[in-house]
């Protein structure tokens, strides 16, 4: 039975897409068939981490939402595109359903809206047509229709936050929503944690505050920034402390 995992953050810039790409790639590396769908229709970006650019994206989620294609036709096998410079064996497969980066397509969604039911049907169709073990949903920050739908249908929700007061308040909102919607599994991930915080103390503090488990405390890293989203960090640098925290997330998600 496939599992749906939503990755969300209340605010932008938390590294949500980066964590999604890294965790999903590690699942593919473990032999699972993985789908990643970018529902951040207003500000898509995860395709960059998987090495896709505008010219290579003949079809996108937008085309499915406008009835131009079946959703699986907007899925790209990106297994061979990631881990540049390293011999990475993707024994499973990873399929990305990007949102369009064309300004006209983004504008059309903003201007005309879309059929939310079609998006819900699309999630299930993807799992069936591509034979997925896991579907990862990269959500839009904050709360909107896509985000609430994603949370409602998820088996597991990962909320990303930074050590920032604005993130703390916003995370409380999302945790509250997740509890109302009775998401079976909820994990928090602290990203870009500054070195002056002791990771275990920070984990304890956050777990106490939200009464939810922290799956990882990912340190702020110049190495991640230096990669500039040009590849999947944990595939390129598997022994790095950031990659080790990604593996903690993978282990918890796999066990859930």
């Amino acid at each position: 039975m496939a599992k749906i995992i939503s990755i969300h953050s209340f605010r932008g810039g938390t590294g949500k897409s980066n964590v999604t790409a890294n965790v999903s790639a590690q699942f593919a590396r473990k032999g699972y068939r993985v789908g990643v769908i970018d529902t951040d229709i207003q500000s898509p970006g995860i395709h960059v981490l998987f090495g896709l650019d505008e010219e290579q994206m003949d079809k996108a989620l937008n085309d499915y939402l406008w009835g131009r294609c079946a959703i699986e036709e907007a899925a790209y096998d990106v297994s061979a595109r990631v881990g540049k410079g390293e011999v990475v064996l993707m024994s499973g497969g990873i399929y990305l359903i990007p949102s369009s980066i064309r300004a006209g397509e983004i504008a059309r969604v903003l201007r005309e809206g879309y059929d939310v039911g079609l998006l819900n049907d699309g999630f299930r169709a993807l799992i069936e047509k591509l034979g997925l073990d896991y579907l990862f949903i990269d959500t839009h920050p904050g709360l909107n229709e896509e985000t609430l739908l994603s949370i409602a249908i998820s088996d597991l929700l990962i909320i990303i936050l930074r050590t920032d007061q604005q993130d703390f308040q916003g995370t409380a909102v999302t945790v509250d929503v997740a509890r109302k919607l009775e998401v079976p599994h909820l994990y928090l991930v602290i990203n870009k944690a500054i070195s002056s915080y002791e990771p275990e103390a920070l984990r304890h503090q956050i777990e106490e505050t939200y009464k939810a488990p922290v799956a990882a405390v990912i340190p702020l890293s110049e190495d991640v920034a230096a990669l500039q989203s040009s590849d999947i960090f944990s595939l390129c640098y598997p022994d790095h402390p950031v990659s080790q925290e990604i593996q903690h997330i993978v282990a918890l998600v796999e066990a859930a």
Partner: protein
Amino acid sequence: MGIFDRIQSEIETREKQEGFSPADLLALSPPLRRLMSYIIREGEVTAAAAAELVQVSPTNAQQLLDGLVHKGYLEREEREEGWVYRTRFARKRGREIPAGIWSALGRRTRPAPHDRDEGPSRDA
């Protein structure tokens, strides 16, 4: 008041809508929210499955589901095995954006090559 009466009463007091929005989930009572979430998650539901989830008789479950159809939250379809209910989602509405913003964006707002002959006009 039993669970059936409570959900029935809640459905009756709700406004009729042109479809259900995921945001509506947050305004429902926990038992009704659980039922709607289940239908969204599973894609569709029969009265028998709803009865098991809500812990009411299949006849009562069908009454609840038909009440949700009447309010515009669900739609139903008759199949060999009986009535099957699906969420009737409201379309996500577009936003009003100041006129001229698209033309100000210039050529980037042109439709994709395969889409030039379809759909409404793109620029304000």
